[in-house]
């Protein structure tokens, strides 16, 4: 569902992301780890369309994010590390706006809001102005907005910042549920225990380059450090004692006979070559139930079809 193909992005002379190739399939919760300034947020911003790669392509369900940002955005639920909320709206009004923008019909939108209110326990404050919310309440509202259209792709930057233990538990359960329903989740975090607990695969980036892709077990094997915590493994890897990039990726792929998450072709994904068969995505609300589809579908929009072709016009109404 998510594909980075030879993606490079620089800030002036500083290369933030260097030749990144990565695929994340359905039902996979991928944790992107790395020290500060490693390129995690840049990677995420390219995925959600805020930044454009200098070279390479980022695709979401087959849509090139730089060429078709609306189509890609429709399929993504995004929780940034510093989310923006309209202080003068109530939580319900904010969810209604997001839902409307995602094309949810009003009856379905009302149902979805009620569902999120129940799941994220927003009921007590949903009709108050957002400016009165605590940090945790705001964070839960942002999650509700991201889950509202049941997207096949979730992108989350530091999911548990400012959440109390109960809210953290709620969010973790929701992420697990979405993953089990077939969604692809890309999560960036500094909380290694969180990655260890819920991620099906991890990627460690440092200085813009992928240093490892795989599972914790594979990392233990790679570093020959069995029974070692992810924290220790992370520090070993990012302190520069081990050779990075391709050799490790290949190693992980070869070792990935039965990866957790259990999607076919995982080894190929680890090598960044998978995803051709899942290029077409249906809209998030087209699929029956909660399970997002990311499979070829005759009625679905073609992967490279432009926004204008799909909607008939590119000019907004004034």
């Amino acid at each position, binding site marked *: 569902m998510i594909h980075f193909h030879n993606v490079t992005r620089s800030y*002036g002379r500083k290369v933030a992301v260097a030749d990144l190739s990565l695929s994340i399939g359905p039902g996979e919760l991928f944790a992107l780890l790395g020290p500060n300034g490693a390129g995690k947020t840049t990677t995420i911003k390219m995925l*959600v369309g*805020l930044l*454009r790669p200098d070279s390479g392509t980022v695709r979401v369900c087959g849509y090139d994010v730089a060429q078709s940002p609306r189509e890609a955005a429709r399929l993504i639920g995004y929780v940034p590390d510093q989310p923006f909320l309209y202080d*003068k709206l109530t939580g319900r009004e904010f969810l209604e*706006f997001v839902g409307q923008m995602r*094309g*949810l019909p009003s009856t379905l939108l009302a149902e979805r809001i009620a569902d999120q209110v129940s799941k994220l326990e927003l009921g007590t404050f949903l009709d108050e102005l957002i400016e009165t919310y605590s940090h945790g309440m705001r964070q839960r509202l942002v999650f509700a907005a991201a889950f509202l259209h049941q997207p096949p792709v979730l992108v989350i930057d530091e999911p548990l910042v400012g959440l109390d233990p109960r809210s953290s538990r709620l969010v973790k359960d929701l992420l697990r549920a979405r993953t089990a329903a077939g969604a692809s989740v890309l999560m960036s975090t500094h909380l290694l225990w969180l990655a260890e607990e819920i991620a099906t695969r991890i990627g460690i980036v440092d200085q813009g380059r992928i240093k490892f892709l795989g599972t914790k077990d594979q990392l233990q094997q790679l570093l020959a450090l069995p029974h070692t915590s992810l924290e220790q493994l992370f520090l070993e890897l990012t302190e520069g004692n081990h050779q990075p990039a391709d050799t490790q990726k290949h190693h992980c792929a070869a070792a990935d006979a039965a990866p957790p998450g259990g999607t076919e072709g995982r080894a190929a994904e680890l090598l960044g070559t998978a995803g051709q068969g899942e290029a077409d995505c249906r809209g998030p609300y087209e699929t029956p139930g909660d399970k997002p589809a990311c499979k070829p579908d005759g009625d679905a929009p073609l992967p490279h079809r432009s926004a204008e072709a799909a909607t008939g016009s*590119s000019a907004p*109404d004034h």
Partner: protein
Amino acid sequence: MSTLIAKPGDLLTPQAEAHAFWLLRRRIVVARIRQLLAQARLRLSIVLVLSTVLWFGLFGLFAEGFMFLDSAVPHPQWREQIVQTVLGSFFVALMLMLVLSAGVLIYGSLFRSPETAFLLTIPARTERVFLHKFQEALVFSSWGFVLLGSPVLLAYGVISAVPWYYYAMLLPMVVAFVYIPVAWGAILCLLLIRYLPRGVGILLALIGAAAVLAAAVLIRGLITEMQSELLTPGWLHQMLSRLRFSEGRLLPSWWLTNGLLSAAEGNWSEAMLLLGLLISNALFWQQVAIWVAGLLLRPAYSNLAGRTAAYRRPHSAFIDRLAASVLCLVPRPMRLMIIKDLRLFRRDPVQWSQFFIFFGLLLVYFVNIGSFSHSLHYSGWVNMVSFLNLSVVGLLLSTFTTRFIFPMMSLEARRFWLLGMLPLGRHAILWSKFLFAAVGAAFPCCALILVSDLALRVPRNILLTHQLSCLVLCLGLAGIAVGLGARFPDFREESSARIAAGFGGTLNLVLSTMYIVTVLALTSLPYHFLVAADQAARTFAHAAPHPWMAESLRLQLWFRLWLIGGTIGGVVLGIATTVWVMYVGMRAFKRWEL
């Protein structure tokens, strides 16, 4: 209604998208109004009353001006020509200022706002995101026009007894006119950010320098090398000829001026034609701006995010070392706070670019105004112009203290986790802000007044009086802005422009204006009256004895008393205002709980 309901799986139609954004804006506006009515009725009332008083004051002033024109220029053709040229020049200046301010506003709201980042990650059309911000810029950049322009145009209508359709066409014409420069500003901003993403500060400085240079050429062309004596028919003719640049038929300002004047003269068909021209151009340029945004907004946004920060040397800059030397007697914690604020000012192009543009324009004007003093015949005018220059500097300074100094305390609240934990008294924080504002204002303002007075060759005593007045103004205005900033902080708002536009900012502007008027009336005005009375006495001394002679001498005595009392009173007022407002601010600041 069917278009408003999106089919599952479809992206929103333009109509549905427009509806969603309209609903969003309506809800936000309604929430704000409800909150204002529920929590800040007194503040709202004060702002409304002050705005109404200001509006009617301006209306009365302009009505007087048009009546004076009617009586002083009896020939209707001349009068018409003067009105056309003055309105034309006013709208040309306004158009250029709207281009600049819209460009700056669009830059801030489109490229620096977290809302844009949010909107670009939901499936909204890029064009819609731009239009949402464009409409905001349109409102923010034109409210000043409504406040200042509407009394001029309505006063003209009332005094000239125009037909009803002049008033009916006023609003659509003005709104259509405003759209055009705002769209130009937006297009310019998008093009610059897309293709020149590096060094936005340098870019703004270049634009400012170009604006100052253009103004310098214009001002020099207007007020120098006049062949005729001031305020004579020949002078008027020359002045009108030099302002002909505003009569270019391709300028939207010309369409607006002539459209309004045609309506005023009863030529409704011509007025309708020009209204149609304005509306069609407004729509055209808005569409071009939307089209450009559709192409450039996302790449420009991405480019700007990729801009590298300028390399900063680890040691302090020359200006910081200079500031540290100048402030060597100030306690070290306060000195460090001041240097910190100086760094923040230097690294914020919005602040220093506006500061340099407006003070640069004044400098150009003051340097060139010396041509007035070449003839002794104009000494009365020189006296008055030098006084008006002092007033203009004071008023300009008050807008800067309102816009940039007043919000400082509110913005400092965001850093209070650090400042509050430092071994630093709250009084030190407040006084450091005061010193920063007072010293930072005194240097350029006193220098400007010095340039003006030297160019006008005013007597030494007037020059000294002006310097004293300027110092008192700087101290008081800095005290008012810092003290009120601490007394009426806004902890929620992140934008200094919005903090300044709130209740506290409005109160700051009004009190600052009252302070300027009082100080000038006490310290500088009596000296100007004294000089005028002295000149009158000298004129009468050459003539035969006249009863006015005795009256003039008696007036001189009164003016001398006023001057001595006023100077002492002005200094006392300046100190008392500063201390009192700072005391009020300090008391409030000590109660801050963050």
